[in-house]
């Protein structure tokens, strides 16, 4: 069971209550939430917010692929996964991503949660532009996904 969504910060916020509702089931003995938030300091620069850019269709496709691949890699069949990521401007302390996973047992849930965030970092086309206290901003360097 999978829920994925990109939430435009101009229209709404990502909310853990939605994840709780999606994952509430007596089937799962272990539920883990990973919440990414905007940090106030990066490389000694005072951060005021981040603008997230996203290639929406590819992002949603990558979430589905990561979900499917987790079955092969981790062999966890009975699971529920909730992934929402923000696009647009987000202030310091606000949430940028929520990953909620529900599994039968805690070991599986920890593995799955970690697997999903690490794969998103490697595969999902989302970009960050950091905004600083001196009114300057900068696109952060990322990971190339070139295929040759």
């Amino acid at each position: 069971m999978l829920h994925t969504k990109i939430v435009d910060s101009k229209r709404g916020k990502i909310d853990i209550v939605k994840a709780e509702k999606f994952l509430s089931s007596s089937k799962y003995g272990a539920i883990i939430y990973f919440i990414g938030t905007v940090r106030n300091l990066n490389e000694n620069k005072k951060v005021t917010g981040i603008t997230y850019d996203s290639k929406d269709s590819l992002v949603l496709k990558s979430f589905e692929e990561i979900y499917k691949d987790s079955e092969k890699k981790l062999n966890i069949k009975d699971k529920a996964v909730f992934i929402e990521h923000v696009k647009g401007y987000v202030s310091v302390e606000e949430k940028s991503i929520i990953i909620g996973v529900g599994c039968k047992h805690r070991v599986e849930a920890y593995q799955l949660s970690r697997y999903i965030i690490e794969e998103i970092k490697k595969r999902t086309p989302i970009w960050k532009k950091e905004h600083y206290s001196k009114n300057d901003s900068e696109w952060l360097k990322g990971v190339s996904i070139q295929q040759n």
Partner: protein
Amino acid sequence: MKIIVELYGATKDLSSKNFLEIDIKNNSTIQDVKFEIIKFIDKKFEGNKNLKQIIESSAFCSENDKIISENYIISKSQTIGIIPPIGGG
């Protein structure tokens, strides 16, 4: 023929329109598209090294959301997306 290159992430600094319209020959490859974008950077951004490096390390995606290789042949006018190095989460 003309193709549209949708811009994402740091490549959005190349145009306020969020896309570039590029003239290429029939059956050009992604490598040729990169070359044209680099020529555009030389002309409009005084050869900005950072922008050029971003283009060199970018991937591209087709209209049907597949990541395509440097040798992918563009045989008709179409829209492709440039995928600079990623960093979400």
